[in-house]
């Protein structure tokens, strides 16, 4: 019994982590008024770049401590690169933000598979990185020989990073001048502009942060949950992250609870399907659990969610 709870706890956090990176990315972008449905594409390119660059650095410099961190950082920057395209289209050229986001979602996987094919041959699956070159598990040595605590807390550093990012994001968005300006730009850009805030600049920064976080989310899949990139790796998690952000009412802490809910339902799905429980339910039905619970929670408990007022509306200086 205790073991089962520990398992569900551990799986919840493991599964929620990539989603939460993406959702936090969405929080930044959309609070500044730029809809970002390109999270999926940014996560994919991040997952690829993280795994690929770690593998290449490993070949070049051997098994140094900084290698996985460099890979993680490069993943974020790769996400930034796609985010920059999104920002140029949506902010400078005032393109339709949804259309641009869709383009990003095609571009991310396409680019990853193209580069993967060029560098490693084949269909874009990167070679497996050895355990020592994956992201670290900070409590691995302390938790050796403690199976219960190990199941719960022996997680990769990416998990701890993302949950601290929730607090940091909250602080930035609600307690700093920068954050308040960012939200002002998303609520009423004209008023912000009148007061001397550079709307374009704020939005650019927000979209780039969003890309960086999504890229990290992808890397948390390819460098922690498994040890390589493959084209099927992200498969829709960027969209779940997007849903979690809306579900969490565009707030970092809300997004966290939503991601944990997705995580716990997935853990429950696996737990209920395990032979120990002995339920004779088809796996097809079990895999619906996360979505059904989400629908129920959305209908019953969450209430109306409304985003930033100027979300999705391009800002044009001097327009009435």
């Amino acid at each position: 019994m205790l073991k089962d709870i520990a398992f569900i706890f551990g799986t919840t956090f493991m599964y929620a982590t990539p989603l939460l990176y993406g959702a936090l990315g969405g929080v930044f972008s959309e609070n500044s008024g730029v809809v970002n449905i390109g999270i999926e594409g940014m996560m994919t390119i991040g997952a690829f770049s993280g795994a690929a660059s770690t593998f290449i650095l490993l070949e070049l410099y051997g098994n140094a401590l900084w290698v996985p961190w460099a890979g993680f950082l490069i993943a974020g920057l790769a996400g930034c690169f796609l985010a920059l395209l999104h920002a140029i289209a949506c902010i400078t050229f005032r393109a339709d933000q949804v259309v641009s986001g869709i383009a990003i979602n095609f571009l991310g996987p396409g680019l990853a598979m193209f580069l993967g094919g060029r560098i490693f041959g084949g269909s874009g699956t990167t070679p497996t990185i050895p355990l020592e070159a994956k992201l670290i598990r900070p409590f691995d040595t302390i938790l050796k020989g403690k199976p219960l605590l190990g199941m719960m807390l022996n997680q990769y550093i990416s998990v701890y990073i993302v949950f601290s990012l929730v607090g940091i994001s909250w602080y930035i968005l609600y307690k700093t001048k920068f954050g308040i300006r960012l939200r002002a730009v998303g609520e009423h850009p004209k008023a912000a502009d009148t007061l001397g805030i550079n709307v374009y600049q704020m939005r650019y920064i927000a979209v780039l942060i969003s890309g960086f976080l999504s890229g990290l989310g992808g890397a948390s899949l390819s460098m922690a949950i498994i040890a390589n990139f493959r084209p099927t790796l992200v498969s829709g998690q960027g969209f779940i992250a997007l849903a979690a952000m809306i579900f969490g009412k565009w707030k970092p802490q809300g997004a966290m609870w939503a991601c944990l809910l997705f995580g716990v339902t997935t853990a429950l799905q696996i737990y209920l399907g395990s032979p120990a429980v002995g339920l004779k339910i088809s796996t097809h039905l079990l895999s619906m659990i996360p979505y059904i619970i989400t629908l129920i929670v959305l209908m019953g408990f969450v209430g109306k969610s409304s985003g930033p007022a100027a979300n999705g509306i391009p800002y044009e200086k001097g327009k009435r």
Partner: protein
Amino acid sequence: MFKRGGTLLLVLLLTMGIFTGCGGQQPQQKNESEDSQEREVLKIGMVTDVGGVYDKAFNQSAWEGLQRARDELGIEIGYQESKQEADYEDNLERLVEQENDLVWGVGYIMGKQVKEAALNYPDIKFGIIDNTYDEIPKNLQPVIFKDQESSFLVGYIAGKMTKTNKVGFIGGVKGDVIDRFEYGYMTGVKYANSDCELLSQYAGAFDKPAIGRSIAESMYGKGADIIFHASGDTGNGMIAVAQEKNKYAIGVDRDQSKEAPDHVITSAIKKVDNAMFNVAKDLKEGKWNGGETIVYGLSEGGVDIAPTSDKHVPKEILDEVEKLKKKIIDGEIKIPQNEAEYKAMK
């Protein structure tokens, strides 16, 4: 006005990026030795499923078989990659238009399309891997593999090597093909060690490594020390956990020991390349067995355990495995391929 033009340009650029992105790694059709000498040469083409020709699994193996046929038999070969399910039909047609003598569909998911094509083009020969039908047209050659035999052998190894008397099985999606793996494995485990407990669970998908990971965590957590998977990419999550927890894993379809050399002790491999080569060889010699299913098992060299198994599996066990192979080939051991046969055997 300029802004709008700029937007259009940008969208155009992005879209082009997508197409070049796909085009680069995916040569639409690659016909080796283009100038055919008066159609004396046999021409064989294959359609891959969505994995593509370099998927390091199934499709790649099939393509390697054809390449061998080209090198050794002088056959002209080519392939078409499918990006999505809707492509199967078009790709089959394209290979027909290119005047191939034999057109392969690789993977049971295009079973329906291959049969339709075979009925539409009775003069052309077709083949399908991992699928068969109740009524088979004369120009269609289905090939299936006795995955239960290789699964039995890895099950035997698991049953002998477990120290906790508990082993696991992770399946992708329940169905005829994965049933062969599950029940073959189960029988092997029990054959080696009748007290051994088997934990078996399906992930419900072939492409969800995070789910494979959690299932493996739960199984290792419950005391299993060896897990076998037949779940495609989902199994990658299992291999990751085996590394972290320093437990053993068993791979599938090809030799997966490269993924984690110290933890993947063996793999149940499937030699699609042999099947592709043999059919090509027969065809060259004027033999064609269309209309009937060819079954590739141990005796035909269609399935086996990975050649790298001797790294972790003790020699005594491997020797016994060799003896078991003989018994299976001679028909002394019958291995069930689904639940009904498994129950009937007890």
